[in-house]
């Protein structure tokens, strides 16, 4: 056989030039290619999967806690001011709500402190994200230290304010102002700082999970590998006049399937994660910001009445918060969920409810400025201003709950898209390597 003679001649010549020599070299290259690609694909899958599960993991404990702590504290302050306004005998419901807020904030600060201990060593955080998480963990630890130290000071000042108020001393109002200043000046800033940092970490994790470069590398390498297998197969069939090498065909099929899986998993995961951001975390954050502004404005309303400052600093702050609310609610009306999609929400948008409250507030201010302080206080406690604020605040709370549920749902779907992907890539790479080895070894055996 001419082919056989040529093969034998080549076998005796320079190894690189002879067919078996070339074949051996190709085999090693294919094996190296399969294993290297398997490693890259597995690392890619693993990084995306862990970043995706981090999107779920980060958002759930810490940033949510920080945001809720912020809300609890703001609410406690608003309730404390409103209860103070009611005089010595503050309504039981308000006292209970204040206590519940403070307890909730205390529990969250404690549990966050426990989380932060392990936050630097969050499982599976790759490279840059891990060091960002470590930096965030340290800064968050400092913020938590402030919260832990200052919360008892705040509650102490509120308690003093109540005690003084109860015996009819104007000093009580000064303590309430002091407590409010401490809350706004330190506690809320620290809580907000945690929230901002955790949100940044969330954004990084999300960007990592949805980022393209690593995936593109894995896909391009995979395609190159498949092409190399095809080229080898064609070269082999020309040299040996065998139509098809089963091993290489198997490796090719496995390669294509693995690439399809990788691309599909990434595509699905990415779309869920982007949707989690767009329809979940972004509106949730806007709602939360709006609620905090609303609570601050509500505190301002009460403090203007309690303080009788004369200097209109609290009323000025009310206007500033309303301006901020206007911006936030505007962005919600374009990017947020429709009120009708939120269960139990009123047909009115938060922006409309805010307008109602603002109107009631101006009526209240007109009463107070007209010298009718007692009627203004009554308005703030049980009148239209109180009712409209509750409705407005409720609409924001509903929006937060809805957006957070949307976020959690989409983020989990995004994470689940990556399930088993890394192991799958490793198995696929090993199968491809084995198939190449088997297929080419059968040809090599013919030269022995």
């Amino acid at each position, binding site marked *: 056989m001419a082919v056989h003679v040529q093969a034998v001649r080549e076998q005796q010549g320079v190894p690189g030039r002879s067919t078996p020599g070339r074949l051996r070299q190709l085999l090693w290259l294919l094996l190296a290619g399969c294993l290297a690609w*398997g490693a890259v694909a597995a690392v890619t899958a693993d990084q995306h999967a862990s970043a995706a599960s981090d999107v779920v993991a980060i958002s759930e404990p810490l940033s949510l806690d920080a945001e809720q702590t912020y809300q609890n504290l703001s609410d406690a302050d608003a309730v404390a001011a409103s209860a103070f306004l009611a005089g010595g005998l503050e309504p039981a419901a308000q006292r209970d709500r204040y206590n519940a807020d403070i307890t909730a904030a205390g529990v969250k600060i404690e549990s966050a402190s426990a989380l932060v201990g392990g936050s630097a060593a969050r499982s599976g955080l790759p490279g840059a994200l891990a060091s960002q998480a470590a930096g965030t963990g340290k*800064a968050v630890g400092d913020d938590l230290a402030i919260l832990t130290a200052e919360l008892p000071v705040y509650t102490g000042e509120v308690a003093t304010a109540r005690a003084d108020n109860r015996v009819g001393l104007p000093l009580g109002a000064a303590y309430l102002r002091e407590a409010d200043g401490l809350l706004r000046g330190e506690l809320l800033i620290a809580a907000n700082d945690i929230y901002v940092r955790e949100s940044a970490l969330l954004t990084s994790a999300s960007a990592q999970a949805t980022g393209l470069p690593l995936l593109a590398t894995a896909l391009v390498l995979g395609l190159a590998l498949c092409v190399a297998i095809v080229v080898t197969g064609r070269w082999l069939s020309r040299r040996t006049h065998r139509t098809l090498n089963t091993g290489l065909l198997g490796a090719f099929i496995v390669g294509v399937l693995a690439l399809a899986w990788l691309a599909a998993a990434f595509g699905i995961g990415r779309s869920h994660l982007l949707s989690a951001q767009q329809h979940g975390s972004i509106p949730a954050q806007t709602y939360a910001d709006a609620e905090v502004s609303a609570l601050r404005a509500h505190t301002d309303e009460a403090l203007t009445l309690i303080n009788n400052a004369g200097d209109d600093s609290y009323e000025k702050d009310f206007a500033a918060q309303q301006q901020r609310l206007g911006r936030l609610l505007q962005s919600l009306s374009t990017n947020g969920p429709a009120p009708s999609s939120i269960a139990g929400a009123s047909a009115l948008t938060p922006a409309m409810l805010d307008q109602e409250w603002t109107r009631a507030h101006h009526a209240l201010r007109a009463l107070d*400025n007209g*010298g009718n302080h007692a009627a203004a206080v009554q308005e703030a406690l049980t009148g239209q201003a109180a009712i409209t604020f509750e409705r407005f605040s409720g609409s924001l709370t509903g929006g937060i709950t809805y957006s957070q549920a949307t976020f959690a749902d989409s983020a989990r779907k995004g994470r689940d898209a990556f399930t088993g992907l890394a192991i799958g890539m*490793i198995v696929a790479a090993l199968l491809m390597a084995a198939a190449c080895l088997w297929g080419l070894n059968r040809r090599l055996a013919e030269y022995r």
Partner: protein
Amino acid sequence: MKTRQIAATLLAAGVFAGAIAGTAAGVTTATHTAQVTRGVRAGAAAVGTAGGRAAGAAACDPKASSLRPAGPAQASPGSYAATIKARGFLIAGVDQSTYHFGFLNPLNGQTEGFDIDMIDAIATAIFGRADASTVHFKAISDAQRIPAVTSGEVDVVAHTMTISCARLQLLDFSTVYFETGQRVLVQDDSTATSIADLKGRKVCATNGSLSLANAQARGAVGVGVPYWTDCLVLLQQGDVAAISTDDAILAGLTAQDPFTRIIGPRFTDEPYGLAISKQHPDFVRFVNAVLQQIRADGKWAASYRHWLGTPVPNPPAAQYAG
């Protein structure tokens, strides 16, 4: 992570196989440093330099610079009192945190005190009664007293306000309705015995009060806050060594904290007057007539007894400029 270890093994195997075929691979890592920012709580502002007391343009006698009443307190046609009567209510700028002078009583939600009684006397002279419909109180801080009068926002200010020559340049005052002087309030455990012992130490007073400048002029480090009760909070929390102002105000603070005491002699003379715009001299005469009436009929003494206790001194005698 198991996946990662397997991947690493795979990579090692691949690199090994690649090395045989004559290929190599490289690894790079990147690190980021998170920036740390921190919010710092802004405390009460310490006032650096002594403002000093602006001397009056000419030699003036704060106690004898007011206008003589034109007769009994009557809202005669064309007078400012008649304008107020036509409006239906008197607008008074008052304090709501100075115990026993002008304060919002948490127990009944009413604005009460010695200063408030002066306002009520004026309202009674105009309307025959003083209640929520005839008097509208506008709460103002110490620093807002002068602007509130000059802008016409209020008809009269009754706000523990000292008649001074500098202030007389800007507005008119009634005759003296109360006389006091600046002293010092410390906690019971303080070793200070007078303002002289507080050189270089933090002493609290309200922004816009003469007390702040007076304390600084005597070597204390002034700490300015919006209200007198804020000073008491700072004192109770150990942030300032003392509070210094008119002893009448200090008495109101001691009443709210029995573990404080007033020390040292009066080191200033503070005659209180009701502030009225220079636009309405006829209203100054009207208010002086009202004050003259309550000095005589015992209402001044009754209010003093009710708010400030016994012994009740004689009311300050009315003195007029010319």
